[in-house]
């Protein structure tokens, strides 16, 4: 055996453990994800193909869902509500995130705290707060009635408007954090260079900041959409009896009708909707990257 062969023979056994050892840090989260996410998700998908009474394999639950106008209306309502929340959150979060990323003022800490503190209160508590403000005899309607601007209360709760307002408040901090990370990653020297070359503030934002923060914008839209689509408490409290979304419909099937396979169908369809939106978001982001030559 030559010295080279001897050396490689000696090294070879050490390669495999070294390569495997790279993956050791991944093991704990992978195991947790497998137990807490993948296995329950698989069970749920499996359950959706079973008959509630007999337990036999069937596609009937899916046929029932897509053949029922109430279910389809619920799915459409979920998509519309989540889309509106995603837009509102991203539009409102952007200026706050930009200020936080670029400002050196001492007020920055205060603004950051104001943006994040809503998360310290529970979602149910915050939603009840909005109910007090938005309901027919709530703060806004009482003020408008008292000032003589309206004679009948404005329909601010028990409908889409109320739910979008409530969910935007709930999800806004996540949008801010997502955009903040993205904007902080943009080199401030680019803005200074543009300023030196005579660009206006609007032009800098339009041609430099916005294009470079596309990943943050897409991420904010996706986070807000998925969080809104799976939210239960806010639509249940602020939506009222006439505003059913998939999350509240799942709750009904699980607890009131005790039809778990049908609830699983709804959950699977919601999951597919969110994955589709995430896929579209990723494609749009990639296309924008190419288009803007980033």
């Amino acid at each position: 055996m030559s010295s080279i062969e001897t050396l490689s023979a000696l090294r070879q056994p050490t390669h495999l453990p070294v390569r495997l050892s790279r993956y050791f840090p991944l093991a704990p989260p992978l195991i947790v994800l497998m137990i807490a996410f993948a296995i329950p998700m698989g069970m749920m998908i499996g359950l959706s193909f079973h008959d509630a009474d007999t337990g036999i394999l069937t596609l009937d639950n899916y046929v029932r869902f897509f053949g029922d106008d109430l279910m389809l209306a619920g799915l459409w309502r979920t998509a519309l509500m989540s889309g509106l929340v995603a837009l509102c959150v991203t539009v409102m979060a952007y200026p706050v995130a930009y200020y936080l990323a670029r400002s050196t003022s001492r007020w920055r800490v205060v603004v950051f705290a104001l943006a994040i503190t809503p998360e310290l209160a529970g979602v149910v508590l915050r939603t009840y707060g909005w109910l007090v403000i938005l309901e027919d005899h709530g703060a806004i309607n009482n003020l408008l009635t008292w000032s003589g601007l309206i004679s009948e209360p404005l329909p601010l709760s028990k409908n889409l408007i109320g739910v979008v307002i409530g969910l935007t408040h709930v999800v806004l901090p996540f949008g801010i954090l997502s955009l903040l990370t993205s904007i902080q990653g943009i080199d401030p020297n680019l803005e200074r260079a543009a300023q030196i070359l005579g660009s206006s503030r609007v032009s800098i934002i339009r041609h430099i900041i916005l294009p470079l923060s596309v990943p943050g914008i897409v991420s904010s839209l996706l986070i807000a959409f998925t969080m809104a689509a799976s939210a239960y408490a806010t639509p249940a409290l602020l939506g009222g009896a006439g505003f059913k979304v998939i999350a509240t419909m799942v709750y009904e099937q699980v607890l009131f009708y005790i039809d778990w396979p049908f609830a699983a169908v709804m959950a699977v369809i919601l999951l597919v909707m969110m994955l589709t939106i995430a896929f579209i978001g990723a494609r749009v982001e990639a296309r924008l990257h190419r288009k803007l030559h980033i």
Partner: protein
Amino acid sequence: MKISRLLATLGIIGTGHGASAEELIVNSYGGPYEDIIRERIIAPFEHQFGVTVIYDAVGSASQDYAKIKATAGRPGFDVVVMTAAQSLDGCRDGLLEPLTPDAVSNIAALDPNVRAMAGECGAVHELQYLSLVWRKDKLPVAPTSWSALLDDGLKGRVILPTFQNVMAAYLVEVMSVSHGGDLLDDIGPGFEATAKLAKHSIGFEQASAVMENYIKDGRAWAMPFWNGRAQLLMDSGIPIDYVRPKEGTVPLIATLNVPKGSENKDLALKFVNFWLEKTSQEAWVTGYKVGSARPDIDVPDDVRARQITTEADLKALLLPDLTELSKRLPEWGARWEREVVTQAR
């Protein structure tokens, strides 16, 4: 020392709770219910048997049943207060312990018709009925019929339950009977009348506790409501009263149930039997202001006049087939969404 503490902690986590053989976990409701059950039932039981009852007030009847189903009959409590509907479902699914007269002797003292409605896994410990609650300071005359809810004087002054509160299905049934239909097969008149009612209602609320607020603060002047809770509101000084309308009403049959996997089954059965004792039933009826399925109890005349306590009261009730009702709930729920909810403003 530290290791022994850790092992003790793990022991508690491992069993899901810290209950020993002399501890019984009872799951029921919170609010005024909890105060009354602790005073009238739990304290005397603990005193008589020398055991400790751990009270768990989390969850509605349907949530408790979902928990029993999800854990295959081992939800972590030994006795649970639910309704006849969950008792029937749980018995059918093999998740609840059958409560025979051999195991719970006082079961034999219950009215056989009411007992049959709850099936062999439910011990009926309380009866309420769907009453028509009204504000005495707003309406000049007491309503006597379910149709009174449709009067013009109550436009925008009636609050209704959502369909996820079983009160809604019972309301459709009594409206059906009031308008020429019946409790199950000819339910159309009930939906038509309830749709008209929705049109001039304030709207819908799921939780009974939230519905209460509407009648308390005067936004609602009338509503369908369980009579036991209505009586508690009356006793608290709210200017309301309630009636059993002339067309009749449907009872809410509350049951005690023992999950199949209860860890203290013997003690659980003793607790159920204790609550069905004549003296316990009298204490409960006078404390919580509800009815009883034991026709032999002795209660004051003013309580008897308002509650279901006699055979005559029991015979006057409209008794739907709860198993059949349970099967029709998804269909009725969809109909409610299409025909009733769409009519509300």
